């Protein structure tokens, strides 16, 4: 099962140095905030201190009177008449009639220094009329809740629901009542999760320049330069191709940088100053108050199980708020809820609800961790009550290749069974547990994704290769794409350089999201390399005077395909490249498509915890991630993805939460009080890479980035129940919450 057993590859499955490593450890890597330009101004944003307020008046005269202040923009400077998602993006970029959450931008200032811009922003006077607000999802859809925006609901919402419900969905299969009747035990509970932020180390940063002629440039920290180009063009009324977007090195994204927050503001300010470049770098507090965390959720789940562990029916009703705009990932959550189980009778109901919170963004397997928390917690409760082994129950009900997924389509090749087998076999399952220690298991799922992809590859004069990709490298994709390209061309890994390029260099690429970069850009890079190989074989054939079909490519060189083709020594890539100027010109390859053959990924986690019964504090003693990678191109990066997903899930489970006061103001917009785990909070996270190759990818890749954040939430809740006998159905399971539960239990 280990990658070392795949002997057919020379490079795929090895662990070379990362191409971005030296730049990152020496500080040379250029992140968003590192980019500057001659004549540059600094921008600062004026933000609402209120959760919900009508903007009565904005008076920027004092700010504009300051020496060195060059421009102020408000919503009045943006085009009107937008609809749909473009309007939502514009409204979130800059509030119109009302501020919709604590931290919502209401104005922006450009000045000759950062300090001056910040001072000027403080002098912009905004008169507010405070309106009633709501931040909790259940309260937001209850009768009498303040309406965030009339008419925001789409056609899916039935008559009579609160206007804050903007999307409704239901789907299922079988006969749910008959399924519950068949069960020996039926349990139903409500589960809640709080919003969690992606917590990337690098705050959003953007340098923008926009002239009167509508031509603009952006140097920006983003996961998707084309996506944000379109979004900024929509918000500002520009032509997409006139905006050139160059992505910087990126210090984490996790989905939160696939969209825009303040990014149009440097452009808007630049235009108002006659085209001077303007830079905005968000503070951590701005990141937490005004960029997308994930949704908060309130979920009812009902499951029926037979005494032998067979799940007969399941019902999930999820309510999620994703801030003051549509877009909570309730659909994805429902699709993932029962994805690991072969259950004949299912019902899913979902509500996307508006509340006075920042606009949510994607966060690593959007929706799936919440769904797993509810479903995998309840499955654990059923197992406990029926005296069944939780891993055996998951194995008994596990979906297999060809099964119809809970959300409709038939699964292609999947590796849940192999993942569970590897989990059961791991030594961590045999570790002894002491007093107040417990073990929890859970399974998680992510679809993975392909998406629009455009890649170009060019051979240099010396036979080395450069690959231009449009997917920013957030998890090691440059290394893995270099490995696959080198493997395909038959040249050393070090001879390939992969560059993440600007929007002018390629066709449209979707962002690096959905665990797609190594799958989709990797597959396209292999196709591009094959195209170049075809051309190199033609060049050799021409020189040898034989048919191109009689030439094959082996170990980085063209050679006659057999004795009948002729007797010629192999012609290496360096030889072919060295004379390409006189044999037909540059040799390159490119590939544009929405690559088919996405492979889904299942994972199983096992966590051992110890609870201090006197303080409610939970310590992670041992943590195991087992996940199907399809094939690990660069195993160290795959392990890093597994560990990173687990670390973020542990934070979400134990301490991370958005805390609002009764005025709807975020109380913890700093890392001191928004408590992501620190290094000393975590043990070394053990990993097992299961490899059930994806037949839809030339090297078997599935995509590994997202599944890993899904199981930790329920696995930890299950382990805590195992340790101290209390079931906590609301996250985070922080010490005050767990101590209160322990006291209530007595």
């Amino acid at each position: 099962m280990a990658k070392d057993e795949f002997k057919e590859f020379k490079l795929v499955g090895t662990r070379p140095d990362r191409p971005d490593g030296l730049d990152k450890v020496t500080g040379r890597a250029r992140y968003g905030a590192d980019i500057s330009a001659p004549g540059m101004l600094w921008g600062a944003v004026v933000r609402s201190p209120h959760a919900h307020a009508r903007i009565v008046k904005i008076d920027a005269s004092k700010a504009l009177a300051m020496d060195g202040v060059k421009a102020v923009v408000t919503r009045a400077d943006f085009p009107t008449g937008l609809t749909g998602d473009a309007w939502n993006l514009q409204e979130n970029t800059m509030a119109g009639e009302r501020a919709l959450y604590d931290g919502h931008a209401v104005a922006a200032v450009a000045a000759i220094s950062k300090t001056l811009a910040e001072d000027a922003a403080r002098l912009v006077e905004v008169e507010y009329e405070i309106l009633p607000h709501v931040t909790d999802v259940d309260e937001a859809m209850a009768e009498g809740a303040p309406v965030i925006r009339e008419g925001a609901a789409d056609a899916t919402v039935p008559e009579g629901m609160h206007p804050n419900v903007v999307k409704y969905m239901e789907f299922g299969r079988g006969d749910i009542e008959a399924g519950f009747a068949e069960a020996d035990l039926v349990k139903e509970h409500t589960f809640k999760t709080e919003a969690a932020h992606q917590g990337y180390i690098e705050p959003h940063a953007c340098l923008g320049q926009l002239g009167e002629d509508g031509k603009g440039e952006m140097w920006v920290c983003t996961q998707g330069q084309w996506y944000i180009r379109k979004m900024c063009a929509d918000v500002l009324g520009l032509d997409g191709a006139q905006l050139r977007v160059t992505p910087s090195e990126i210090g984490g994204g996790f989905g939160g940088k696939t969209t825009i927050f303040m990014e149009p503001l440097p452009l808007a300010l630049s235009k108002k100053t006659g085209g001077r470049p303007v830079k905005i770098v968000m503070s951590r507090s701005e990141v937490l108050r005004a960029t997308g965390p994930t949704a908060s959720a309130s979920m009812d789940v009902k499951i029926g199980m037979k005494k032998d562990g067979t799940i007969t029916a399941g019902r999930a009703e999820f309510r999620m708020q994703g801030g003051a705009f549509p877009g909570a990932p309730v659909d994805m959550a429902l699709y993932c809820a029962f994805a690991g189980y072969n259950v004949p009778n299912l019902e899913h109901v979902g509500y996307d609800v508006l509340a006075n919170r920042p606009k949510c963004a994607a966060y690593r397997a959007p929706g799936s961790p919440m769904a797993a928390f509810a479903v995998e917690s309840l499955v654990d409760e059923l197992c406990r009550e029926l005296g069944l082994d939780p891993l055996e129950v998951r194995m008994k009900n596990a979906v297999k290749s060809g099964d119809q997924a809970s959300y409709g389509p038939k699964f292609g090749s999947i590796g849940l069974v192999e993942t569970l087998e590897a989990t059961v076999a791991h030594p961590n399952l045999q570790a002894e547990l002491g007093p107040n220690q417990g073990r929890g298991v859970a399974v998680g799922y992510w679809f993975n994704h392909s998406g629009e992809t455009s890649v170009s590859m060019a051979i240099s004069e010396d036979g080395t290769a450069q690959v231009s990709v449009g997917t920013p490298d957030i998890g090691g994709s440059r290394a893995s794409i270099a490995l696959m390209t080198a493997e395909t061309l038959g040249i050393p890994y070090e001879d390939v350089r992969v560059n993440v390029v600007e929007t002018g260099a390629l066709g449209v690429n979707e962002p690096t999201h959905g665990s797609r970069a190594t799958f989709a850009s990797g597959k396209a890079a292999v196709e591009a390399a094959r195209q170049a190989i075809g051309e190199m074989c033609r060049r050799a054939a021409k020189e040898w005077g034989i048919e191109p079909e009689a030439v094959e490519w082996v170990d980085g060189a063209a050679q006659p395909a057999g004795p009948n083709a002729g007797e010629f020594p192999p012609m290496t890539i360096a030889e072919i490249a060295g004379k390409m100027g006189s044999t037909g010109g540059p040799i390159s390859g490119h590939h544009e498509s929405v690559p088919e053959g996405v492979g889904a990924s299942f994972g199983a986690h096992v966590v051992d915890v110890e609870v201090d019964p006197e303080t409610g504090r939970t310590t992670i003693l041992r943590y195991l991630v087992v996940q199907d990678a399809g094939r690990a191109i660069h195993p160290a990066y795959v392990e890093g993805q597994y560990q990173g997903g687990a670390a973020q899930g542990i934070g979400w489970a134990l301490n991370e939460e958005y805390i609002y006061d009764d005025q709807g103001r975020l109380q913890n917009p700093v890392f001191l009080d928004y408590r992501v785990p620190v290094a000393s909070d975590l043990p070394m996270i053990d990993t097992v890479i299961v490899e059930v190759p994806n037949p839809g990818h030339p090297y078997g890749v599935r995509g590994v980035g997202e599944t890993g954040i899904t199981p930790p939430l329920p696995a930890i809740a299950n382990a805590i129940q195992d340790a101290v006998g209390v079931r906590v159905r609301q996250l985070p399971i922080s010490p005050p919450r767990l101590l209160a539960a322990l006291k209530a239990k007595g």
Partner: protein
Amino acid sequence: MQYHTPASFEEAAALAAGAKGTTRFLAGGTDVLVQLRAGMVIPDDLIDLKRIPGVSDITRTDDGGWRIGVAVSGAQLGAHAELVADWPGVVEGMELVGSTQVQGRATLTGNLCNGSPAADSVPGLVAACASVEITGPDSSRTVAVQDVPQGPGKTCLKPGEVISALILPPRGKNAGDAYLRFIPRTEMDIAVVGCAVSLRLDGDTIKEARVSLGAVAPTVLLVDAASEAITGTTLDDAALDALAAAASAACNPIDDKRGTVAFRTEVAGVLAKRAAKIAYTRAKGA
């Protein structure tokens, strides 16, 4: 902003007394500079004390106690073997402040003057019966550490007054102290509850004790009832329960992003018991 580097505390006090706007004294700067950069407190006069002779020294006093300069960092305290042997609880409280980098700058006096009820080094100082020397524009005075904090962000210092040294009493024999705090993580956090215990034994019996709690009231508390609960005992279970009850009873906390009233009240008792046990063990071993 005016930046000053006085050569003596008398000069520092005179500068502060003559200043009109917002004044801040600068030693380690781990609060002052952070607040400045966050735009929370932008001083008109910033008076740097680090050029004053002796501010970075730890010296034994004539009576066997310790005099700690106002610019002595947490890292310096931790590296001072004799001081650690005398007052391990005081030092471990200070060492919990911030990260390794912050430890290179942060000071006991600064932690005290920041006025936070959650300051990690203050309960240990209160339990230790520490005091501060205060230099004013006209005169000097000595004040017990427990009387310095007057509320969140507030101290007993009058305009123009500056702390010029921190004094720890002689430790004496058969004594030990300890500090524990509760945080949800393992480091890089602010105390949800803190507790320091300092005690002296006569054989197995506690002859005298001081118990101090942090983050459970507007100021760090010296809890006499908790001290009395264990004085005269061998720290048996009944004494520990009485200690916990007294500690919890003294709490007057708030609900906030870091913890609830119920949680802080309960955990204050838990930490008091645990800290007392450590202090007792240290006293036995001394």
